[in-house]
C-alpha cells in the first residue's frame, strides 16, 4: 500500500471493507479465489463424511472395527492403526515444511523455498504410496465397495470413496507443488516482479489437504 491508511478492525472493519467502493478482501485475488475454492471443497468433503455417518448409523450389520481392519503385525505383535498413524505423521511433517517454504518465499530465499517445497512434495508422494499399499492390502483381504468379510458393506464404499478422493487431492497437490517449486528455482517469478504470493496460495491448498485428513482420521479411523 502506498498511502498509510489506518483501517478499522473488528466489526467496524467488516462494515468498512464491504461498504467502500473497492475490492472487499484486502488480499491478492489469487489468494481470495483459493480460499473460495477451498470453501467449496469443504462442502464436498463434508458431504462425503456426512454420507458416511448416515450409512454407518442406518446399517443393521455390525460396523467393522477400524483399529483391527487397519492394524499391522510387527514382530508378532498386532499394533492397531499403525500404518494410518505413520501416514498421519508423514502428512504433518509435510505441513511443517510447507509452512516454512511460504515463510522463505516471502524472504525471497529462492533456494530454501525450492528445497522445502520439494521436501513437501516428496512427503506427499510418500503418503500416496502408503495409501496405495493400504488399498492393496484391503482389496487382497476381500474388501470391496459392495461387500467385505468384516461387517457392513457400506464400510468399503465409504472407505474407497473418502480416502480415494482425499488421495486424489494429495496427488494433485504434489503436482501443483512441483510446478511452483521448479518455477521458484528457475526464476519464473522474478520476471513477474519477484512476487512469491503463489507459494502461500499453493501452501493454502496443501494445508487444506492436511486439514481434511485430520477429519478423516478422527471420523473414519478412530470413531
Amino acid at each position, binding site marked *: 500500500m502506498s498511502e498509510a491508511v489506518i483501517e478499522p*478492525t*473488528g*466489526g467496524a*472493519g*467488516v462494515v468498512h*471493507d*464491504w461498504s467502500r467502493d473497492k475490492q*472487499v*478482501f*484486502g*488480499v491478492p485475488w489469487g489468494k*481470495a479465489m483459493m*480460499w*473460495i475454492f*477451498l*470453501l467449496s471443497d469443504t*462442502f464436498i468433503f*463434508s458431504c462425503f463424511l*456426512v*454420507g458416511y*455417518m*448416515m450409512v*454407518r*448409523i*442406518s*446399517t*443393521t*450389520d*455390525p460396523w*467393522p472395527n477400524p*483399529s*483391527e481392519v487397519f*492394524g*499391522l*503385525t510387527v514382530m508378532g505383535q*498386532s499394533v*492397531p*492403526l499403525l500404518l494410518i*498413524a505413520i501416514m498421519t505423521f508423514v502428512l*504433518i511433517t509435510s*505441513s*511443517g515444511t*510447507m*509452512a*516454512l517454504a511460504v*515463510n522463505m518465499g*516471502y524472504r525471497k530465499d529462492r533456494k530454501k523455498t525450492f528445497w522445502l517445497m520439494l521436501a513437501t512434495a516428496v512427503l506427499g508422494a510418500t503418503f500416496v504410496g502408503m495409501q496405495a499399499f493400504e488399498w492393496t492390502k484391503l482389496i487382497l*483381504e476381500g474388501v470391496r465397495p459392495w461387500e467385505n*468379510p468384516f*461387517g457392513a458393506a457400506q464400510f468399503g464404499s465409504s472407505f474407497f470413496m473418502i480416502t480415494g478422493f482425499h488421495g486424489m487431492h494429495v496427488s494433485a497437490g504434489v503436482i501443483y507443488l512441483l510446478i511452483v517449486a521448479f518455477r521458484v528455482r528457475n526464476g519464473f517469478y522474478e520476471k513477474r516482479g519477484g512476487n512469491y504470493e503463489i507459494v*502461500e496460495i499453493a*501452501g493454502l491448498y496443501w*494445508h*487444506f489437504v*492436511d*486439514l481434511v485428513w*485430520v477429519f478423516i*482420521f*478422527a471420523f473414519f479411523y*478412530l470413531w
Partner: protein
Amino acid sequence: MAAEGQQHPLKIYWIMWGALFVLSAFSYATDFMDRGALRHFLILLFMFLKAGGIVWIFMHMGWERLALKFAILGPPVAILVLIWLMAYEGFYVEDTRVESFGESTFVPETPHH
C-alpha cells in the same frame, strides 16, 4: 498488513508444528481406549485443536481481516444442519430396517494380518 504478505517469525511455525505432532500422538492414543463418551469427546477435542491450529497459524487465517474470516469460516456452519438432518434420518432408517427385515444375521470375520 495483508498487502505486504503474511510474514511472521519462524518460532510460531515451530511451535505449531510441534503441537501438531503432540496432538496427533494424543489422537492416536485414543484408539487404545474403549469406545464411549470420553473417547469420542477426546477424538473431537484433539481434532478441533489440530484443525484450528492449521487454519489459524499455518493458513494464516488468524492474521486476515474479519471480513475474510467471516466469508470463509461462516458458510461451513450450515453443515451442522445437514449433520443433524442426516443423523435423524439415519436412526429412522435403521429402525424401519429392523422392523421390516429383522436384526442383522451377519457373522463378521475377525481381521488377521
